[in-house]
């Protein structure tokens, strides 16, 4: 789910940026620094949308750098266990399939794909029901439930399932 939240950060600014454009410099450095980053607590920072408050700068002893505490609003994407969302399939293999929902990758293992769907290899590997009515392949859109998340330094990785009511393919690229 996407959220609009307020975060805080202490920004260090080199003295060469001091002057009329100090604020602009500070804001553009903030965007460069935080956009695209990911933390386990807040998820992926997608975009800074506004600055709430810039505190008084504090000159650091020994260097000329000044530290500014900044409160800023941003759009973040944070997946939660138990959350249901839509994603598109990026890769299918006999272990299961990978899907993407925004910046996050979700793996659905073949144990978590309904039992009546079987893996078909070929140049377009896919999972298909025995009557061929439902097919999951690259670029299919699926609705899935996140059942686990793993956080590492720069990424959040999710495990999902489509073995539940109202989950599964919502749009097949071949029939659409």
């Amino acid at each position, binding site marked *: 789910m*996407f959220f609009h*939240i307020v975060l805080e950060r202490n920004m260090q600014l080199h003295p060469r940026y001091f002057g009329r454009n100090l604020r602009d410099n500070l804001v553009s450095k903030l965007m460069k620094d935080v956009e695209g980053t990911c933390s386990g607590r807040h998820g992926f920072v*997608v975009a800074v949308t506004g600055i709430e408050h810039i505190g008084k700068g504090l000159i650091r002893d020994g260097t000329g750098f000044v530290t500014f505490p900044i409160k800023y609003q941003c759009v973040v994407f944070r997946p939660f*266990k*138990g*959350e249901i969302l839509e994603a598109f399939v990026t890769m299918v293999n006999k272990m299961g399939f990978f899907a993407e*929902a925004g910046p996050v990758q979700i793996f659905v293992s073949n144990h978590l794909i309904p039992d009546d769907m079987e893996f078909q290899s070929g140049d377009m590997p896919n999972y298909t029901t025995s009557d061929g009515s439902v097919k999951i392949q690259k670029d299919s859109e699926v609705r899935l439930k996140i059942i686990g998340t793993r956080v590492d330094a720069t990424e959040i990785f999710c495990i999902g399932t489509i073995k*539940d009511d*109202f989950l599964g393919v919502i749009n097949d690229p071949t029939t659409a």
Partner: protein
Amino acid sequence: MSGEEEENAAELKIGDEFLKAKCLMNCEVSLILEHKYEQLQQTSEDPMNQVSQVFEKSLQYVKRFSRYKNPDAVRQVREILSRYQLAEFELCVLGNLCPETVEEAIAMVPSIKTRGRAHDDEAIEKMLNDLSLIKRFE
């Protein structure tokens, strides 16, 4: 990490910080990101180079999975859903997935039935009807 273990969106356990935060539906994120992208286009020649991969992927994703395209409809969806005493998170899941039946809505947002709120099937049905009306007249 103990807090991490307990999180469960189905029971609305998403941590205090996010529970109080403003959730965004995909269609809202799409409006925000596109606006930002347009601004970037005006200031630099190659905006795709300026944005992070996270931004790019999110924009693609929300464009693909937005149920409502026009800004007025987006506003209406939020307005209508906010009449039903939903938590922000529940509101956005409903707005994103647009369930068609009461059963589906409860499967998508199990917490809707708990917490002692007066959400009987009729109320949910009415809510879903209102939602589908917006879609139809968009």
